[in-house]
């Protein structure tokens, strides 16, 4: 069963086409990797799926229903949540409050507080619970970013560059964490440019270049294709 279907999706900014006639089907319960060089339209894809940007042409179906016109917050309530490449936390609030806020929208206050503590523990943020978010390191902010998104109980989680600016140790725990989220049944769309990470994590991979799909399939196999190597390294290496 496909959790997300994208049909003939085009997103243009004025004359610049960021995503062009894209067709994607994402099976439920997998990690779906999206890679491509800078400007390939990866973040735009996330913005369009979450409704931050309006679709120019085409449609998006989530669990079978057309969500192309829903505002961002409704999509989140339906089960589509994202993380941001540059963490967008409530920097003046504590880690606990950051995780609590999405839970309060969905649960009674007391349950939400218990759940927030549980999520913090699960996301290795237990020691930072009462710290202000602005005091956290980049790596910890990335964790908080994931924790907040996880607290919305998403069915589809769009993760934008989780490894950017993260130390190597932290990278391993993030990889395990993202895997465990998938094993819990959350479908994950992962945008990441650290190839090692994508190949380790993704069950299926799409490569974008200039907003177009140039390859789709199992990660190991896709990365060997001529057009993918060309897109990344230029013609002379192909």
């Amino acid at each position, binding site marked *: 069963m496909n959790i997300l279907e994208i049909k003939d999706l085009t997103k243009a900014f004025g004359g610049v086409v960021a995503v062009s006639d894209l067709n994607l089907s994402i099976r439920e319960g997998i990690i779906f990797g999206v890679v491509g060089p800078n400007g390939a339209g990866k973040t735009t894809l996330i913005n369009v799926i*979450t409704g*931050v940007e309006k679709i120019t042409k085409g449609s998006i179906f989530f669990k079978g229903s057309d969500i192309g016109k829903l*505002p*961002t*917050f*409704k999509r*989140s*309530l339906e089960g589509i*949540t*994202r993380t*941001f490449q540059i963490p*967008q*936390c*409530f*920097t*003046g*609030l504590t880690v606990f*409050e950051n995780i*609590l*806020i*999405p839970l*309060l*929208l*969905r649960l009674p*206050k*007391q349950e939400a507080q218990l759940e927030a503590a549980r999520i913090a523990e699960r996301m290795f943020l237990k020691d930072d619970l009462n710290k202000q978010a602005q005091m956290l390191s980049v790596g910890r902010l990335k964790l908080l970013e994931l924790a*907040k*998104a996880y*607290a*919305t109980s998403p069915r589809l989680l769009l993760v934008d560059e989780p490894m950017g600016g993260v130390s190597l140790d932290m990278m391993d725990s993030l990889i395990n964490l993202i895997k465990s989220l998938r094993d819990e049944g959350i479908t994950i769309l992962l945008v990441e440019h650290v190839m090692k990470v994508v190949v380790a994590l993704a069950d299926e991979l799409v490569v974008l270049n200039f907003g177009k799909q140039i390859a789709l399939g199992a990660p190991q196999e896709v990365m060997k294709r001529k057009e993918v190597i060309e897109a990344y390294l230029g013609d002379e290496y192909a």
Partner: protein
Amino acid sequence: MQNRSVKPIVILFVCLVVLSFMPFIIDPGSYKYLYNIFFIVNVTVLLATSWNILGGFAGQISFGHAGFVGIGAYTVALLHYHLQWSPWLALPLAGVVTLLAAVIIGSIAFKLRGPYFALSTLALAEVTKLIAEGWRSFTQGTQGVVVSPGPLLSIPSGGALYFVVSLWLAGFGILCALLIKLSKTSYFFLAVGENEDAALSLGINSKKYKLIALYISSFLAGITGGVLSVHTGFIDPSSGFDMVHTVEPIFLTMVGGIGTVLGPVIGTVLLVPVGEVFRSHFPTAHLLLYGIVLVVFARFIPKGIMGLFRKKKI
């Protein structure tokens, strides 16, 4: 949990009841000037609290509270002038009419994010003032409107009555702020004020919460205007839409502690009496003082007096 939310409300109520006995202890007849200051303090608490709910709780800076106050003041005055309503009876309507204006401005200003809201509220304040000046057949223009409040429930109008009414209105404002602060809504306000993109991505309908904050705030500011026009007994465009009603609540909230329930109260109780004395000796110098203190606090003590004492909210 329940206890924790009830306690501050009980304390507020007890304070209000105790303060209501003030006229029996200090005679309003012989201390007219003092009661005048009491009244101004109460009304300003209400106005600053109103601004803080929008600017402090929800992070939407209003530069238009003078407009809300003016609309409230003119609602009472014009209902009295054209339809001979008792100003007391018109008081709740001052809030309602102001809220209607806020519905219009909110639907325009919140289409966009960023500084547009602050600018739109400023525009609202100026437009309403120009209308009050220009629509002479309805508002009497710059000539102004006289309001003569009769007795309220057979209590003669005077220092004691104004004190008690304004005290309970201020209490009502604080209660509103307290109820928000104790509810889940305060977290959504905070989230929207802190980072709207993040709030949206987590499922928070940011526009809804901004509008709620605006509606509550404008209602309270409209009531402030209404009770001011009852007390002054006269309203004209320059007094009703005085820029001071925009700047004073910002100033007092910043000094007391933005985003806290007690901040605007502390700021007002500490500074308005000083300001009043200052004003009577050096007219308009208080504006200079406001400007300097505002800059100093915003720049160096952004959490205000409340931030110096406590870490936690309320």
